[in-house]
């Protein structure tokens, strides 16, 4: 069997993974990045909108600073975030955007003089100062006090991904594509790499390293309707969870996006609404201004998703062969705006719907979009439970998003967290040596080989992996979507437990030779159902509504009891996850308060507790 050695092994080569890799490579450490697909195909490249950083260069961003960005992030998280982490993030974001500019990102820049913009379908005027000409500009995004979202037309993720991958090529980082990690190598205390299936040959390989970073993105694909790429299937979460030592933080925190197109659930950017697009119902009437008079379409994503679902339940949805949906209207933005600033949207409408957004409405519905849930790490990005294991980006619960992530904060998180955690990994590597225990490598590889043999031979049974996956996805859509309630969640847990049993009896129909997709799906199906059970069980136990977690039977945000983060462990042989809790934040720069959108009452936390934890930031 092929064995590879490196100082740092990065699993996942999207923006977070590659950014983590860069720091170690710059310091002369040997770095290997693994990716299921060529790095530039990573889901990072699909992000259209932009990255939040308080540069304050453009007219509508004047007066912005990391403090305001921090405040928006904390409010956005519905006080579910770790405030120390949100602070690290907000402070580092502007520097990281400038660094990206230095490496080659063609950010859009400030153009001086008078120009127009749209908000809520109305035209407004703004004036950009001549002294700011050529600085990085920003656009408006939902949930932000200032225009703060740095962008490159509507291909920000793609442009930044190209630059980051160029940087990796320049540094000679070994980025290996078509490699899928299927298990971590560890001795119960220390992580020392991973067992990997080569997606060129189907062979197993061992990757041994001093430090390992999991940066594999979200797990949207365990839902039926998701905006995520097909590779966002939870592979990274599963190998960490399977150790039984590393917890998944806040599994119940799943974000839904208001505008997935029907039927393929491809995302059209929030930039549509940021730039002045409106949502219409079956009568082609606006409705967001009724529910959210102030912010209307620009209210936070979970809020917009909920009102859309509510409005459809009121009978105002548009009936179609694929279920009900609503309309997104960007017709009034005009040809020039649509063909330049929203070109990707234009192309999506054309290629996948056969719709011209200049003259026609776009069918949209809320869709799973982002997983705030993830591998729980401390503020240095070190995973709980295993030494030498790190995690960054969407796969991690670092945790700056809490229970709701603001648009533009995720793409920014990939590089900002990647930079911060990359530097911490360098510190770790500088003072660290590990002992390689070859028997662990041998044992784990044998175990994985046996798993594959069993699946191919049908030793455990002959359940069809795609049927099992389908039932898991349906169960999540039914019980763990935009609205949640006790009885439905209980039923979902029961259903998923049955699905888990069946997942244990999966056997291949094909022979599993080479780059077999059925085998890849079968290797992760049990892990996926366990993740689904973590979502359902954590959502059932959290008897409050916070951010994207919305309990119809517990509409209040209950800070008295639930100002906490869920830690879900899967112990070997169990049929349910073990849930533990920790305080959401050790300190408060901003004590829990109104998040300023979405309504709902708050049961306040103990005053003394809040007072003890509240700190004054020296500035």
């Amino acid at each position, binding site marked *: 069997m092929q064995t590879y050695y490196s100082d740092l092994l990065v699993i996942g080569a999207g923006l977070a993974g590659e950014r983590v890799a860069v720091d170690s490579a710059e310091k002369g450490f040997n770095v290997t990045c693994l990716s299921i697909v060529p790095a530039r195909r990573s889901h990072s490249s699909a992000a259209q909108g932009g990255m939040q950083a308080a540069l304050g260069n453009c007219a509508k961003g004047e007066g912005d600073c990391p403090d305001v960005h921090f405040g928006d992030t904390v409010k956005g998280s519905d006080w579910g975030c770790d405030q120390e982490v949100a602070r690290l993030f907000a402070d580092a974001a502007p520097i990281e955007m400038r660094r990206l500019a*230095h490496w080659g990102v*063609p950010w859009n820049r400030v153009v001086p003089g008078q120009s127009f913009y749209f908000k809520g379908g109305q035209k407004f005027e703004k004036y950009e100062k001549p002294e700011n000409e*050529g*600085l990085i500009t920003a656009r408006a995004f939902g949930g932000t006090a200032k225009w703060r979202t740095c962008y490159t037309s509507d291909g920000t993720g793609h442009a930044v991904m190209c630059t980051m991958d160029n940087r990796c090529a320049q540094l000679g980082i070994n980025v290996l*594509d078509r490699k899928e990690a299927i298990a971590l190598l560890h001795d119960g205390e220390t992580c020392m790499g991973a067992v990997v299936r080569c997606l060129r040959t189907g062979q197993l390989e061992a990757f041994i390293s001093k430090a390992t970073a999991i940066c594999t993105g979200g797990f949207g694909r365990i839902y039926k309707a998701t905006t995520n*790429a097909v590779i966002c299937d939870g592979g990274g979460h599963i190998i960490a969870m399977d150790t039984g030592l590393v917890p998944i933080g806040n599994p119940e925190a799943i974000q839904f996006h208001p505008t997935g197109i029907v039927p393929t659930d491809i995302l059209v950017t929030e930039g549509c609404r940021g730039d002045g697009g409106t949502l219409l119902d079956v009568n082609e009437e606006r409705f967001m201004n009724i529910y959210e008079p102030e912010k209307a379409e620009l209210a936070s994503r979970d809020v917009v998703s909920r009102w859309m679902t509510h409005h459809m339940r009121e009978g105002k949805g548009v009936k179609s062969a694929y279920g009900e949906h609503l309309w997104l209207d960007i017709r009034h933005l005009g040809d020039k705006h649509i063909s330049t600033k929203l070109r990707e949207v234009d192309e999506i409408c054309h290629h996948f719907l056969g719709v011209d957004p200049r003259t026609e409405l776009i069918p949209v519905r809320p869709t799973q979009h982002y997983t705030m849930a993830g591998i729980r790490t401390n503020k240095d990005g070190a995973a709980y439970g295993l030494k030498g294991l790190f995690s960054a980006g969407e796969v991690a619960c670092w945790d700056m998003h809490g229970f709701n992530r603001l648009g533009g904060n995720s793409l920014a998180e990939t590089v900002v967290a990647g930079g911060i955690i990359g530097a911490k990994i360098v510190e770790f590597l500088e003072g660290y040596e590990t002992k390689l225990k070859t028997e662990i490598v041998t044992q784990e590889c044998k175990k994985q080989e046996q798993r594959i043999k069993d699946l191919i031979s049908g030793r455990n049974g002959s359940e069809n992996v795609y049927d099992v996956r389908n039932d898991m996805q349906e169960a999540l859509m039914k019980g763990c979507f935009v609205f949640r309630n006790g009885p439905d969640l209980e039923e979902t847990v029961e259903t998923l437990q049955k699905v888990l049993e069946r997942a244990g009896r999966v056997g291949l129909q094909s022979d599993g030779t080479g780059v077999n997709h059925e085998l890849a799906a079968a290797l992760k199906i049990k892990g996926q159902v366990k993740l689904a059970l973590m979502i359902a069980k954590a959502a059932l136990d959290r008897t409050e509504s916070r951010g994207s977690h919305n309990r119809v039977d517990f509409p209040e945000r209950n800070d008295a009891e639930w100002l906490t983060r869920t830690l879900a462990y899967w112990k070997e042989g169990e049929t349910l996850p073990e849930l533990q809790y920790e305080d959401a934040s050790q300190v408060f720069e901003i004590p829990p308060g109104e998040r300023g959108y979405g309504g709902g009452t708050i049961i306040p936390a103990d005053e003394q507790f809040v007072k003890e934890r509240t700190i004054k930031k020296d500035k």
Partner: protein
Amino acid sequence: MGRELQFEIFRYNPQKEGDQPRMQTFKLEETQNMTLFIALNRIREEQDPSLIFDFCCRAGICGACAMVINGRPGLACQTKTKDQPNKIVLHPLPVYKLIGDLAVDTGVWFREMYEKTESWVHTSKTFDPTKEEERMDNEVAEQIYELERCIECGCCVAACGTARLRDDFMGAAALNRIARFVVDPRDERTDKQYFEIIGNDNGVFGCMGLLACEDVCPKGLPLQNQLGFLRRKMGITAIKEIFRK
């Protein structure tokens, strides 16, 4: 009832001993708004789980699912079955190494291309985190992005006459990549340095001008304009070099 679609799909798994390249037929009923992404996944999940093909974003953004669709390279995810005849013939892209069935190895090809073109900003400046960013004209930024929109699907190379004849031809994607750095004021490389990379038959002078690259580019990149632009630039550089000698 939708149409009954007939798929003729190229099959060959190089990892399987004794496997022979062949075409295999699958039948599927067409549903509304069906794309090849929906169709191929249904075939794999319902009829033959051994079928190998690549999809990633399924939204025309990542370039993973390029294949030859009824004789023409294109993205499977954004090909609507209603725009195709009843019989849909699918082959893997030529030029690239075959992984299996419809999947090819674009990753290695493009990584080699980055190394040949030194696909990064060459600058002598170092980054100072305490300083304001270096200014740039917005139009220049947009011009750079226009060329950076390439999704590395490989269609242009697969459709290229020269690339089919010669393994070492860099292809439109590589030349477009160079053009991206030529227009970037941050890159300090001189025309002479670019000439070293592309001023030969493997680069700008190898193109036969058949225009297929631009015809099949799913992102509509102006590949021929870039080639013309670079050719003029490299021609002038070559003449200057002759006179210097």
